């Protein structure tokens, strides 16, 4: 039967919910017309998206020269944004897959939206490797496809080629994982809707799910398998992203610590983003019972942990540089801390190392407003981490004659904002049309932390 757990442990789901109640709560949000708040958020997000579209189309029509790059600094905002968004994506998979494997029941109320977030983040990320090329219309050359050139394939030694495979695999697997999870809920909604267009759409999307346990059995196994696949996948993805830099010869990039460092950073920023969204959604959609303080608390602790790892990575980098005796390497780090981009470096350290320390205090963890602000700061910090790694390493490399500066143009900034626009537009639409909380899974854990006595 249901797990035995101590009565002391607070309930996962507050309020004495019954399955029907769950269905009721979640679906209500979908069936009632969008609130003014939603419209507000949507219009902001969508206008950002439009700005981004304008910027990108202008850049593609005119040339990468419309970015502030130069011969020395060949990457800046583009790849920074790419790594940033991939990182954001990772939390979703972490929560839905890794926590699933670790049997962390509390994930059930957040995993759906976390996975959605993953998808949208990976979409945003995927755009940048394409538009950062000089000839985006030829970006498909990055994939090996049969051709009349000899045939000539691609360079499987290039981390960028690895990226293409990693990102597209990651997107596909996450999408499937997410959709598989959705099917039962789609069916639930289908069966609550009055016949009509909407009902027909859900009927199609729900694959004719009818709750047969013979299917449920396969389903459970499948879900476990996907979780099992997604877990190493998510780690491999950011490892590969980090290899974009680690395999290069440029001091500040050429570092073996990158994979763990990047994965931790990714999860760090991802969790922060999930929290940001959750805290808003919770208020806006009245899901206080489902996303309880316990959830927030758990995630804050995760933040604390990953922040620790990231801090350790920063320290290690400096130590390696110092210990290596390689003066080029040493210079890069001195240059980060005291050079022209010191402000970026210290923003990064401040937001990623010092700010999260507040989370040691329960009182802080309990105050959602503060947590919200912290999460925003952490995301800023993590964006700057990538910026620092890329730009400060490039702008002053081996030959002093090459040393140059970097200044973003309006086009670049608009593109960055545009990616946020895309992300939030997608997320807001998602909140409106699909269940933000996995009803099926929540129902299964309803009685968590309730002793049988009170439950009977």
């Amino acid at each position, binding site marked *: 039967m249901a797990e035995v757990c101590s009565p002391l442990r607070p309930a996962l789901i507050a309020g004495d919910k019954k399955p029907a109640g769950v269905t009721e709560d979640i679906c209500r949000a979908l069936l009632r017309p969008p609130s003014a708040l939603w419209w507000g958020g949507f219009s902001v997000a969508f206008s950002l998206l439009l700005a981004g579209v304008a910027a990108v189309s*202008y850049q593609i029509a*005119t*040339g*990468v*020269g*419309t970015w*502030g*790059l*130069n*011969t*020395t600094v*060949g*990457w800046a905002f583009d790849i920074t944004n790419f790594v940033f968004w991939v990182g954001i994506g990772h939390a979703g998979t972490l929560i839905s897959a890794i926590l699933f494997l670790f049997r962390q029941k509390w994930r059930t109320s957040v995993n759906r939206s976390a996975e959605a977030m993953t998808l949208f983040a990976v979409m945003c990320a995927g755009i940048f*490797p394409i538009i*950062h*090329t*000089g*000839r985006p*219309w*030829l*970006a498909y*050359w*990055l994939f090996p496809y049969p051709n009349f050139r000899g045939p*000539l*394939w*691609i*360079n499987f*030694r*290039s*981390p*960028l*080629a690895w990226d293409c495979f990693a990102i597209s695999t990651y997107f596909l697997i996450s999408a499937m994982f997410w959709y598989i999870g959705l099917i039962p809920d789609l069916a639930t909604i289908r069966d609550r809707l009055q016949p009509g267009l909407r009902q027909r759409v859900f009927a199609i999307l729900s694959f004719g799910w009818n709750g047969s346990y013979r299917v449920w059995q396969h389903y459970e196994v499948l879900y476990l398998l996907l979780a099992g696949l997604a877990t190493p996948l998510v780690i491999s993805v950011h490892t590969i992203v980090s290899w*974009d830099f680690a*395999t*290069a*010869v*440029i001091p500040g990039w050429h570092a073996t610590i990158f994979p763990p460092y990047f994965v931790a950073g990714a999860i760090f920023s991802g969790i922060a983003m999930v929290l940001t969204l959750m805290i808003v959604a919770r208020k806006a959609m009245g899901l206080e019972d489902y996303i309880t303080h316990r959830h927030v608390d758990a995630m804050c602790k995760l933040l604390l942990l990953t922040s620790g790892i990231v801090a350790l990575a920063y320290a290690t980098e400096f130590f390696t540089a110092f210990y290596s*005796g390689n*003066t*080029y390497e*040493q*210079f890069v780090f*001195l*240059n980060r801390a*005291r*050079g022209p981009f010191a402000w970026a470096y210290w923003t990064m350290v401040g937001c990623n190392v010092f700010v999260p320390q507040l989370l040691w205090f329960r009182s802080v963890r309990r105050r959602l407003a503060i947590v919200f602000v912290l999460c925003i700061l952490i995301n800023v910090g993590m964006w700057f981490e990538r910026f620092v790694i890329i730009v400060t390493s*490039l702008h*002053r*490399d*081996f*030959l*002093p*004659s*090459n*040393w*140059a*500066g970097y200044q973003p*143009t*309006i*086009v670049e900034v608009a593109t960055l904002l545009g990616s946020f626009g895309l992300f939030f537009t997608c997320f807001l639409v998602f909140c409106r049309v699909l269940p933000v909380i996995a009803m099926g899974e929540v129902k299964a854990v309803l009685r968590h932390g309730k002793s049988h006595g009170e439950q009977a």
Partner: protein
Amino acid sequence: MEKHYWRSLAECENRGELAAAAEPEFAESPAREIEAGPSRRGFLKAAGFALAGGALAGCSRAPGEKAIPYAAQPEGLVAGRAQYYASTCGACTAGCGLLAKVRDGRPIKLEGNREQAISRGATCAAGQASILGLYDSYRLKQPLAGGKPATWEGVDRAVLEKMERIRAGGGAVRYLSETVTSPAKQAAIDRFLAQFRDARHVMYDAVSASAILDAHERTHGARVLPHYRFERADVIAAFDADFLGTWISPVEFARDYAARRMPPNMSWHVQFEGRLSLTGSKADRRIRTAPGEIAGRLAQLAAFIESNGAGGDDLAARLLQARGRSLVVCGVNDLDAQLWTNYINHLLGNYGATLDIERASLQRRGSDRDLADLLAELKQGQVAALFIDAVNPVADLPGVAGLDRIGLFVSFAGSVDETAERAHYICPDHHYLESWADAEPVAGLVSLTQPAIRPLGSTRAAIETLAAWSGHPAKAYDLIREYWKDRFDWDRALEAGFAEVPRTHAAAPRWIGRKPAPPAAATPGYAVDVYAAVGMPGGRHAYNPFLHELPDPITKTTWDNCALLSPAAAASLGVGDGDILRIEAGAAIEVPLLVQPGQHDQVVSVALGYGRKASERFANLGPRWINHKPTINANGRVGANAAPLLAFEHGLLRYQRGGAVVAKTGRRIELALTQTHHTLSVPKHLAPAGGEVRPIVREIAPAELGKPEHAETHEELWPDDHPYNGHRWGMAVDLNACNGCSACVIACQVENNTPVVGKDEVRRRREMHWIRIDRYYSGPPEDVRVAHQPMMCQQCDHAPCETVCPTLATVHSDEGLNQQIYNRCVGTRYCANNCPYKARRFNWFDYPREDRLANLLLNPDVTVRSRGVMEKCTFCVQRIQEAKIEARRNGAPVRDGEIHTACEQACPAGAIVFGDLNDPSSRVSRLAHDARQYRVLDELNVRPSVHYLKIVRDEKQQGEKHHG
């Protein structure tokens, strides 16, 4: 397709209407997308997805492209095969021999003529760039009368009739030209002027050597310019003479100088100057000296030498040791200084040894005194007729007035410049590549110029015009042929490009001078110093975008001339780079400041030749996008004209004058520098212990010669995977020979179709030159050392760029080349990021190539890169391919020295050597095993194929020298 345009073009050229024909020919210019068919490209651009299918299908048919053969093919011409015509460079009066490479009727590249004594295979940056002048769309296509297009008949009639009246009235006729090195032309001018009673031929040089000529008139009784022989000099003392950069005959001097700077037995060179010049940057010892002090210094040196080295002056001692093997040169246009120079050379017995006045140089013959007189006459309106040939006095000189009071004012200018626009008639001369001409740069050496292409417009050689106006019209060819008849074998000379003729002077002039009077004391305050920049040796090149975008070898500025101040001086004024200064010396000009280490604290230097009308055309140069900034300055031109700062003093044009006032205006502009960090040492507060200075450029003292430092050898991990069995191309760059003159940069740009990107892009650090010259300072700013390092793709065997390219667009050839395949590149820029030398260049935009005429310069053997594509030095692979295929055709292997990369070919110092590292006897592999050899960033184990040779500098006092 590019390659075939030419065939049809050549055909048009046959009809002699290339310029006109160029228009339709280039309806789609060669600057074409590197993409399959044009329709494919259209489809890429077209947004309408729905129609893509149609376009796609449409693509499967070839465009109805025409292939037009000759109607009657000229003898010996085969489409696609280059021909070389021996000629003479017209970029300045030095008279370097050239070979003009003509491809299907179009001259596309200039190469030095190895046989000819002045060039000996090399050229300077300006010479390399001067080919663009041929395709200058601003050149006049027919004569102008009163600013209106006219016919030659009309102009001739009008001018002759006006001349008739003047001849009757006995008015003064003046012919103003630069130094005429062409004897035939001189004769024509004389014949022409002979028709008049009061006629005078006035010659002046924008950068005058008049003082030297005058001084020799005093000391040797003949107004001669010695032929300086640096290759014979063991000790060189140069006083403000930039003989490697711009002075008289830089290519020849650079070559001679480099020849004597080969370790171990190197010449010793000391430079006295106020501005850090190219020459100063190579000197063993450099002593900052204000222009005013030069004469004093010379007098002092003379004293030491007279007293046989008493006073223990190191220089005097060295000079005395090298009597007859030493050379003292002075570039100051001041009679005192020059008299003292002659006196010292006389004392040292250098005349006849290192200074040849028997076969004197004829490269500078201008007389400032005559010029001054002429200007005076003009002011008083005493000139009835003025003929101006190849000079632009209005822009070159201060205080030119009264031009509108001339009865007949004729200019031979090729395009409308500041002077020509005020002339009554402009009778445009040919570009030198279109014309027959001769030149005698040094007495006894006749260098011939033959047309490499039919004239693009209906222009006429000045010599023909003169002949027509002297009453017996003739073709230039006949005039020259006639002049030299039975002096040498014409055909052989034409083939060789030059001929030696028996000496013209009877006997060498003897020393008749005596010890000069002690020089006047220097005037206090700032001295303004107007100089000719290496990249812009005179205003005549102001039309040339290649030269404007060429970073000055010392200042690294482009698209501007700056006021150079020493760091101390700048600090005292509280100004920094880019602050606009107001320099007042008589007249006033405003130029941006550039802080220049090595500059004398009391000297402010400004370059000549900027702020010309010709540069107005660059208003919208470069890619156009929202943040684009114009290439020109507020005055609508590139840079500011420094001519107002010049002045005549005792009949000499003074380029350096005391008593200048320098003030800040409060305005500032952002300079377009290609290098912003100027030393090999990293900023103090960022310097890790032991990493303060980077060993990118290495310098040793003569004593350390022959001691190779041990370079760590890395094991090859996969020796069998990449055996280089055939050729293995490599390069060696002798940093000791390289003087930074940048001829290689332009040569590379012309050879490889590298675009000009404009000031704004350079400001953004996006210049496209495939080879750049890194300039590093060391030592304190008041006594700065300079190192020049040509830096191009190092063609690494373990190229970091290759591993990271996802599309295999850059891979290694089995001959050791790092290949870049433009059409496969999608432009991720990953390779450039991962290049430790940052030798790769990215096409940030489709760089405009609207000027269809200028497009005729494009090298058909090199793809024109499109937007979004990475490019870089290829070791001129097109030349390698050509040589290999030809060798195979002739059944002989490629011999060492058969392939010259464009940079190597142009280098006056012979600093760059290209060849086969697998051939142990090749020059390059010998240099690759030289004791001075090192490879930049060798520790990365990227295995560059470019070997550098260390700089050798002898800074010690002679005393220490022996036990040094």
